[in-house]
């Protein structure tokens, strides 16, 4: 996450992303959770490179506020904890001359976050309402694991259909979805297609209703964005698979020698955690 030229360019493009701009224009807690998780990742990268009290404070404050802004902010906590563990393991391998200097910050971080969540996170309310510690109102009771099931207003219909498809042709044919009952366009039933559509085109989801558009010119903009986003999506997808390929042998051998750096661990676990979260949510 260092301020390389490449990172600056990517940050510039991300800043123009219509999905993020759309979220920023709405009065919801989404902007807050994006901000606090981003701040935790940024402060974490800087802290694990060069620990200091100021960076620890920023990391801890952002880590505590992210889940309080929105429940899925919880996912950043395992990423930060994993980065702390990676730094401690690196210290035990002798890569760090002061191995104990990270124990107190780790314990302090965990205590502050636990107190903040214990005091303010509505675990109890959610448990009373949903019999779960989290708010889970998804109803996918009609979904089948291996084959398509009838769902009244389909999103995900089966695991293969949801996770093993990327319906780019359908996205180009139907750059916007409706929110009706009919399972058309099919991109709505494919997890990765839906994410891709929502991220690259503000009109894809046709939500809020005032953002709907059937203008040919507007749909053409969406089609162009979908095509132009493909090289970046392919590179990112290949990179995520490649990163998984570096972690799996390390985990299988339970080898500490080849563990990635704390900053790399932070990014990798955050990416894996949020992907796992949306897969779990989609299949819940």
């Amino acid at each position, binding site marked *: *996450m260092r301020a*390389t030229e*490449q990172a600056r360019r*990517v*940050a*510039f*493009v*991300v800043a*123009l*992303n*219509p*999905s*993020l701009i*759309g979220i920023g224009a709405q009065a919801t807690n*989404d902007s807050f*959770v*994006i901000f606090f*998780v*981003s701040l935790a*990742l940024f402060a974490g*990268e800087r802290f694990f490179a060069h620990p200091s009290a100021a960076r620890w404070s920023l990391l801890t404050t952002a880590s505590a506020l992210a889940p309080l802004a*929105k429940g*899925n*902010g919880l*996912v*950043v906590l395992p*990423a930060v904890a994993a980065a702390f563990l990676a730094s401690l393991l690196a210290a035990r391998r002798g890569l760090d001359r002061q191995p104990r200097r990270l124990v107190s910050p780790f314990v302090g971080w965990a205590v502050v976050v636990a107190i903040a969540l214990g005091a303010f996170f509505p675990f109890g309310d959610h448990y009373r309402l949903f019999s779960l510690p989290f708010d889970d109102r998804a109803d996918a009771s009609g979904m089948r694991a291996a084959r398509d099931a009838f769902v009244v207003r389909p*999103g*995900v219909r089966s695991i293969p259909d949801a996770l093993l498809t990327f319906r780019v042709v359908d996205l180009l044919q139907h750059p916007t979805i409706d929110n009706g009952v009919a399972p058309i366009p099919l991109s709505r039933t494919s*997890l990765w297609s*839906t*994410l891709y559509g*929502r*991220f*690259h085109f*503000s*009109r894809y989801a046709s939500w809020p209703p*005032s*953002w709907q*558009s059937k203008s040919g*010119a*507007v749909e053409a*903009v969406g089609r162009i*964005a979908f095509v*132009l986003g493909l*090289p*970046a999506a392919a*590179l*990112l997808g*290949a*990179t995520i698979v490649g*990163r998984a390929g570096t972690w799996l042998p390390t985990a299988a051998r339970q080898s500490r020698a080849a563990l990635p750096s704390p900053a790399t661990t*932070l*990014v*990798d676990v955050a*990416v894996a*955690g*949020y992907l796992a*979260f*949306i897969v779990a949510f989609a299949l819940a």
Partner: protein
Amino acid sequence: MKDIFVLPAVLAFAALFAQALSTLGQSARGRGLARLVTAATALLAVAYLVDVAALAWQLVPEDWVEGR
């Protein structure tokens, strides 16, 4: 399946992408591919701008714009 469920990690995804693009550009074989991805992503930024501008124009209240 809303994108907000993964968007909190947008910085991590962006960092991974920037790192991958940088790594790709360091090899002679990958340089062309890196240029292709960079060019497509730059044009994508223009498409984003047009998308947001069109949305903003659509959302401007009718009585703010004469003759629309």
